[in-house]
């Protein structure tokens, strides 16, 4: 195992870097989109609710692999992008649907009186949402949000299917050239843990700090 690690160190590190980068970018995009669509779902406007609902149901109910292949195979015929970009977009949109559902649940669990109090106090809907409702909603949904983040990092292995040169992709390459599949995939698993375990503990820490 040590042998594989040392001889393919740069491949592992490269893959790890790509996985980390794609995860961070997808996390930022999916948080922004997810929060945005969560707000669109709770806005007092039936049409906007419907648009948000359609978006969420589409990306929540189609397999991640299908979404990603759509961007890699179909969309690339019109807009040039490599596997890493296509995969990261697919991952972002897919995850954003789950984050939207999570954040929406958080917003709905904030007492209705908070919005009424803020509106009666003279704040606009958006000011109340930003300053009063969302901070309370996020605090409530930190644990399920942590799950989504961890799923996102693991799901980034989808990049291997679209030549994204991520950790999983490098693992496949190493395994097929060395034939040492067991050791290679154990090492790949350990590299994923290096991202997901600290993330998991950080979310737990946040939960306790803000509780």
């Amino acid at each position, binding site marked *: 195992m040590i042998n594989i690690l040392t001889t393919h160190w740069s491949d592992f590190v490269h893959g790890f870097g790509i996985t980390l980068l794609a995860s961070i970018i997808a996390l930022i995009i999916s948080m922004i989109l997810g929060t945005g669509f969560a707000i669109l779902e709770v806005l007092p406007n039936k049409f906007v609710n419907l648009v948000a609902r359609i978006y969420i149901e589409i990306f929540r109910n189609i397999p991640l692999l299908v979404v990603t292949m759509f961007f890699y195979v179909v969309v690339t015929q019109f807009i040039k992008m490599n596997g890493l970009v296509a995969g990261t977009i697919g991952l972002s949109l897919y995850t954003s649907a789950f984050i939207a559902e999570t954040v929406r649940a958080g917003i709905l669990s904030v*007492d209705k*009186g*908070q919005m*009424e*109090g*803020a*509106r*009666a*106090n*003279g*704040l*606009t809907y958006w*000011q109340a949402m930003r*300053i*009063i409702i969302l*901070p*309370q909603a996020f*605090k409530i949904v930190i644990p399920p949000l942590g799950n989504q983040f961890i799923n996102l990092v693991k799901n980034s292995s989808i990049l291997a299917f679209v030549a994204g040169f991520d950790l999983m992709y490098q693992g496949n390459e190493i395994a097929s050239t060395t034939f040492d599949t067991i050791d290679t995939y154990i090492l790949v698993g350990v590299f994923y843990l290096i991202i997901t375990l600290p993330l998991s503990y950080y979310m737990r820490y946040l939960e306790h700090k803000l509780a």
Partner: protein
Amino acid sequence: MAMIEFKNVEKYYGDFHALKNINLEIEEGKTVVLIGPSGSGKSTLIRTINGLEQIQAGDLTVYGENIAKKKSDMNILRKNVGMVFQHFNLYANKTVLENIMLAPRIVLKRDEKENREIAEKLLEMVGLSDKGNSYPDMLSGGQEQRVAIARSLAMKPKVLLFDEPTSALDPEMIGDVLEVMKKIARDSDMTMVVVTHEMGFAKQVADQVIFMAEGAIIEKSPAKEFFENPKEERAKQFLSQVLNH
């Protein structure tokens, strides 16, 4: 000129007729108390005054602005109309001082130093100077409600609405809140509209009492007259129920 004027106002929740042909004028600086059995539309009526409930027909003019019109700007209206709720509705994620200072800062753009001075003075007025840095969940109900009153006053509104401000409080907390409300009624020229079941408060402080039942205004009288000599049968019945026990 009346500060608040209802003209033939109708309000429905689906098929339910919540407010029936409301006609009412409330003069500037007066304290008006709304009483009546539960489900009579008192809270609905008071909530239409700052646009938390929309009306379906009629005209409702508040501080010169007809808010029944679609285009009217509720955010401007609400600068002039404060509200105190049954369940306080303090911002759970903000300290007491922040609760009071938030709206003046972002809505009125009040200078930070002045904002703090006003907030501290108001906290002193409601007897909670030592609670500025506490969060709402650390306070008792009575304390929360006094903070909520201070928060409304910080906006220096022309009209202050109270929607059953003592109904969710333990009996021993009610007195402190009523004291603060009496102080405001006595010392300021604010127009106050109060939905309450506190008949003692109504007797002492109200200029006018409005009695409602089943979504309609049954009787409007000066407070003394209403309690000593109610005109309507329905009002007499109600008073005998709430006063004789």
